[in-house]
């Protein structure tokens, strides 16, 4: 965390600098009407705005770098949580797989029974039952 803390400290300094620069900028007040005063105002305002822009950009970059550094400090915990979650989902999937397998078995049994019935007494109804059972098996496969 030390690097992240250092980045935070520098970033805070930049923010304080930005605050002071903004105060100086606002102290300029409205642009004077006389051409010389207006030119001087323009120069000062542009310089202060440039400073403010640079300091604000620095805060943004340093803060983002501090977040990334800070995140790296949680690598171990993130890996642990990730593994534990995967293990649990695997167990849940195994049980779901057993249930799906039983359903498939039921579908195959239904198809076999429908085939036997159709072979013994072929009719529109028994053939339709074969088609229905066959579709169910195909859907589950």
């Amino acid at each position, binding site marked *: 965390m030390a690097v992240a803390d250092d980045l935070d400290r520098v970033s805070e300094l930049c923010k304080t600098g930005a605050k002071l620069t903004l105060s100086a*900028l606002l102290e300029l*007040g409205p642009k004077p009407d006389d051409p010389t005063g207006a030119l001087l105002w323009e120069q000062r*305002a542009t310089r202060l705005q440039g400073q*403010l*822009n640079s300091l604000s950009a620095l805060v*943004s970059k340093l803060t983002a770098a501090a977040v990334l550094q800070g995140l790296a400090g949680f690598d171990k915990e993130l890996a642990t949580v990730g593994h534990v979650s995967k293990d649990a989902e695997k167990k849940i999937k195994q049980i779901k797989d057993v249930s799906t397998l039983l359903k498939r078995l*039921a579908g195959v049994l239904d198809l076999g029974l429908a085939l036997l019935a159709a072979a013994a007494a072929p009719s529109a109804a028994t053939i339709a039952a074969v088609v229905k059972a066959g579709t169910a098996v195909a859907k589950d496969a």
Partner: protein
Amino acid sequence: MKRFLTGVCAFALSACTSLSAVSDVSARLKSASATWNDVGSEFAASCEREATLNSALADCALESDASSGLAAANAVLGNYFGALANAANESNLTVKPGLDAAASSVAKIPGINADQVTAVSGLAGLLVNLATNAIRERTLRDLIERGGPAAQTIVRGMDGLVVPRLGRRLDTERLQLTGQFGRLIFAQRDQAGPDPSALCTGPSASRFSGTGLLLTLEYCRRLAVLDKRAKALADYQASLAVADKALTELQSSKSRLKSRDLAQRLYAIGADLDDKVSAVRKAFG
């Protein structure tokens, strides 16, 4: 309405098993982690908003990396809460539908004694149910025991990682915004005063030049977005604290997850979490 339903659930615990309380709070935690993503993405969003006014920013690559990193961490937490919810949800850890389907098909076989099939499948169902319930509780305990402390460290870490830094980022965006618009309004020879944010309330800007007035309106619009985000940071922090509390409850009660007291506490925590998260969602979503 939500509070009422939670109350009903808490009082009617005979109908809602304590594992359903674990499942409920885990599902809410999963949903909260998705909302925390909106907060994390604000590092990049704030940079992109400022980049329209500040050429010194050049690009927002580093800020985007920070937001992506936080999104990845939230995704890990989201998967963990999802696994907790799945393990606590009975319908995910049961073979009953498959067993019923198989028994019903077997019973149709000609010559089979249907009563015996029903009896045997009922016994098998009971045994399988006992086994799957044991697996379910073991899976949950394992998730809480092995993953709980690490998840809690991350949740607590997110507070320090995000709140002060995003607060600083938003403060600085505000300074830059005020500087930029203050200077532009001054350049119109309009009197923005020492605190241009005061222009957003009261009639001062109505006396400005046309350009000055338009600049003020845009400044106030951008400032309102920033204020909304900054205020929601407190709700984000509170939602992390509630998530931390939920994880503490789960860890301290991992050996009696079906206890009625725990269920009551978890339902209350879940409702609290929802309140905080919805406030964050409104501001960032």
